[in-house]
């Protein structure tokens, strides 16, 4: 039974279950846990808070994890597990300085409790996280070789002190590979032999898989084989990971990111092993999860492939999925107009997009305006980013000194609060929409084309949702889904798409790549728009309804 109240959501989270509910209901549930902690509720045990933080991190709701862990720390003091979740969440929202300072402090605390098994276990984790922070610093700035060496040393130290922790070992190996690449193949003195290290990690992880099959272990085995140049074996382990029912999207994205960022793989040129593995993952995501994901660094290669080798691109990147080369073209085009919405400290909390102001309402003028959900940017909706703290980035903007421009809001043109999923009304209310102008955004910034006509329902009717998944990697993902229903007022659109967290405020496209709706929520048991009962559905608010409301 899907919870419908914040209390029920909080209950599920505390029990270690992740409820599939709308973002804002989830946020309300997490807020209740925060309130319980702050009020010192006796009934709330640390295990419940740990459960909630773990589930929220697993599903990429990092800001909610942080809120719970921060509240615990403020009210009840240091807990090594909650603090670990908080550091993980900070790394995933690219707040590396804060993550490093917190992990360093945590290590000092853990070292004071050598007799406590939990502190001892988490001490290893915190040290590994310092390695991960260093690795991420290098990924963000590939000139920063000191961070790369730091990452290698930290991962290696953890692995050598506890060889069963192959997670540290495989990261040490990946960093070593990068170091060798940077030094022209000459290893640093006193480091273990690269191939020996790879073989040992592979032995450990294969042994571990025999007793306890695990998606992380499959990914590690695949990566170790990649390091050893045994690409067929790397592929075999990857297929084991892909076929495991326990593999989460987060795990798949993590391995994909590792192949891309650390092993320099390119799915459009599968001649190199890391590229081959990435093209298999890209095919899998396109076919099984009906999504394609691009990161800015892939854009030039994909543009070149579109110009020179469309069929190769189709084969390597899309497989037998329903996506076409046109989908890729449209995603590349949308990349310029789809923005990532974050708060003033850089947490990526939603998506939005640019449209012509005049299309919505003549008085807005021809320049671009930015649309997102009211539960993403609003001064009145609970847990939304207040207008003054909202920032928007566009991933293909030219970086200035390594950073993308963060556009602040200069003016709120319109806002309409969110309503429950499937709630029908005749008055064009509860559109979950905020329309703003962005300060200093060029007047000729590219806008998406919108339509006021919704497709006819039928077995071939599709909806495509493009949004920014949460997490450290800058990316945009396109989901392909079936259009399920439209309400009688043509206000709400239902479609079945496995959207990621962070999709709130995404444009929903028709098959001609015109924006037909603003994505707002999804539910496992959404009330049907026509007739009784529920079904699994995502919901968008039609552009037609927003336009009619603005012009009424």
């Amino acid at each position, binding site marked *: 039974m899907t919870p419908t109240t914040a209390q029920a959501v909080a209950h599920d989270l505390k029990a270690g279950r992740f409820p599939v509910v709308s973002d804002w209901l989830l946020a309300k549930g997490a807020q209740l846990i925060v309130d319980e902690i702050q009020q010192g509720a006796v009934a709330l045990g640390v295990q419940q808070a740990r459960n909630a933080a773990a589930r929220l991190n697993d599903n990429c709701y990092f800001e909610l994890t942080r809120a719970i862990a921060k509240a615990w720390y403020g009210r009840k003091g240091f807990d090594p597990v909650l603090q670990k979740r908080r550091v993980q969440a900070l790394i995933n929202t690219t707040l590396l300085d804060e993550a490093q300072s917190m992990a360093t402090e945590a290590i000092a605390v853990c070292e004071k409790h050598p007799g406590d098994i939990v502190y001892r276990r988490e001490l290893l984790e915190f040290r590994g996280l310092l390695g991960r922070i260093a690795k991420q610093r290098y990924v963000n700035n590939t000139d920063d070789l000191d961070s790369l060496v730091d990452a290698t040393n930290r991962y290696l130290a953890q692995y050598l002190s506890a060889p069963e922790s192959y997670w540290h070992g495989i990261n040490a190996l990946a960093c070593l590979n990068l170091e060798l690449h940077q030094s022209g193949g000459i290893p640093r003195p006193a480091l273990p032999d690269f191939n020996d290290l790879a073989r040992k990690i592979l032995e450990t992880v294969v042994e571990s898989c025999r007793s306890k099959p695990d998606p992380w272990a499959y990914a590690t085995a695949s990566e170790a084989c990649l390091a050893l140049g045994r690409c067929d074996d790397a592929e075999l382990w990857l297929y084991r990971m892909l076929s495991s029912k326990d593999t989460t999207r987060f795990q798949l994205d993590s391995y994909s990111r590792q192949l891309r960022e650390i092993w320099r793989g390119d799915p459009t040129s599968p001649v190199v092993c890391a590229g081959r593995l990435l093209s298999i993952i890209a095919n899998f995501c396109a076919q099984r999860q009906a999504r394609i994901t691009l990161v800015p660094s892939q854009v030039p290669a994909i543009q070149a492939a579109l110009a020179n080798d469309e069929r190769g691109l189709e084969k390597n990147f899309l497989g037998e999925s329903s996506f076409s080369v046109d989908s890729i073209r449209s995603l590349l085009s949308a990349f310029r107009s789809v923005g990532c919405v974050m708060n003033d400290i850089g947490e990526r909390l939603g998506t939005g997009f640019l449209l012509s102001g005049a299309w919505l309402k003549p008085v807005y003028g021809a320049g671009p305006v930015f649309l997102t959900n009211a539960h993403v940017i609003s001064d009145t909706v609970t847990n939304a980013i207040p207008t003054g703290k909202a920032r928007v980035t566009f991933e293909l903007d030219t970086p200035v000194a390594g950073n993308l421009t963060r556009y602040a809001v200069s003016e709120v043109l319109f806002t309409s609060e969110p309503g429950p999923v499937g709630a029908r009304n005749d008055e064009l209310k509860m559109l979950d929409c905020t329309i703003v102008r962005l300060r200093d955004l060029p007047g000729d910034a590219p806008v998406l084309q919108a339509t006021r006509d919704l497709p*006819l329902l039928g077995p071939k009717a599709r909806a495509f949702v493009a949004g920014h998944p949460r997490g450290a990697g800058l990316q945009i993902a396109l989901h392909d889904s079936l259009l399920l229903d439209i309400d009688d007022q043509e206000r709400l659109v239902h479609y079945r798409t496995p959207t990621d967290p962070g999709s709130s405020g995404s444009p929903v496209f028709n098959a001609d790549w015109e924006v037909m709706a603003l994505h707002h929520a999804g539910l496992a048991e959404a009330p049907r728009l026509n007739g009784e009962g529920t079904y699994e559905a995502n919901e968008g608010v039609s552009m037609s309804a927003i336009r009619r409301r603005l012009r009424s």
Partner: protein
Amino acid sequence: MPKRRSAVVFVHGLAKKPPPDKLLELWLMGISRDNPRPDVFAPPNKGINLYTKGVPHELNYYADVFYADDYETDFSSYFEAEGRGADAEILADKLDEPAPVAPIPVTPEEQAFLARFEAELSSQLITEPPVAPGINPAALAGAEIAGLLPAAWREAIIKKAAMEAYYFLFDKEYTRKDGVNFQVRSELRRRLVDKLKAAAEKGEKLVVVSHSMGTMVAYDVLRNCADCPKVETLITLGSPLGIKEVQVELRAPGLQKNDFPAATTSRWINIYDPLDPICGADPKFANDFEPVDGKSVEDIKESNWSKWRHTITHYFAGLQFRAKLTEALDL
């Protein structure tokens, strides 16, 4: 479902057709293809997908009145005839098959109609000359001279068009080979009016897209049927409405000249290829149909290419047709 801004009613043309669902699918495919013939129409030439654009549509089907369930089964004429001669399109359309029933004119007026109608089409269809010894037939095939057909095909096309026109225009009783009788004009009128009413339930503005003999049915209903719903735009493609003998039979009682169906219709766009033999010698209508209330026919010339310049999917590929349909649907 909520009512949409527009709805389309299609009216098909001459000869036997695929089953209704298949024919509709083929017509929608023809309209929705992107850049279907880049050598004829320079890209970008984006198709119009009526499902994606949210435009409800109805197909007014009447081929069964003449041909029952003897459906066309070779659909290749609807697809791009890359590397195929126009002959293949005619064969696939079964235009080379003889008409199922030869009209038997009763009155001198009917007799005169048939003679003149056939003469009009004959003047547009030229019999292919026998290939002289020593000339490579393949060299002639590339010439793509419109209307240049083998004598037997030419005869079959003329007779079939004449038969359909005759039974419709004179509202003759037609007995199908399975024994079912139709009063043809009454039946075809009723079917189209029903489809227009059904479409009016789904869309605020109606657009009629008609082809070939179907344009006669469309004009007749819009001009002469009192219960016809209002239509925003009538589009006629490859229409024989320029033929004088046809005009006479469709003229409203008491009028000396045919006129614009202004009581029901706001706009009439006629798209023709001057070499389309079914259009006869006069493919333009602005001078044939008297303007009413300032409304007159907009004639637009567009290439149907190839030898058989009457193919519906070729008209659907046209840049001007697509622009006008987009305009009519306010997309």
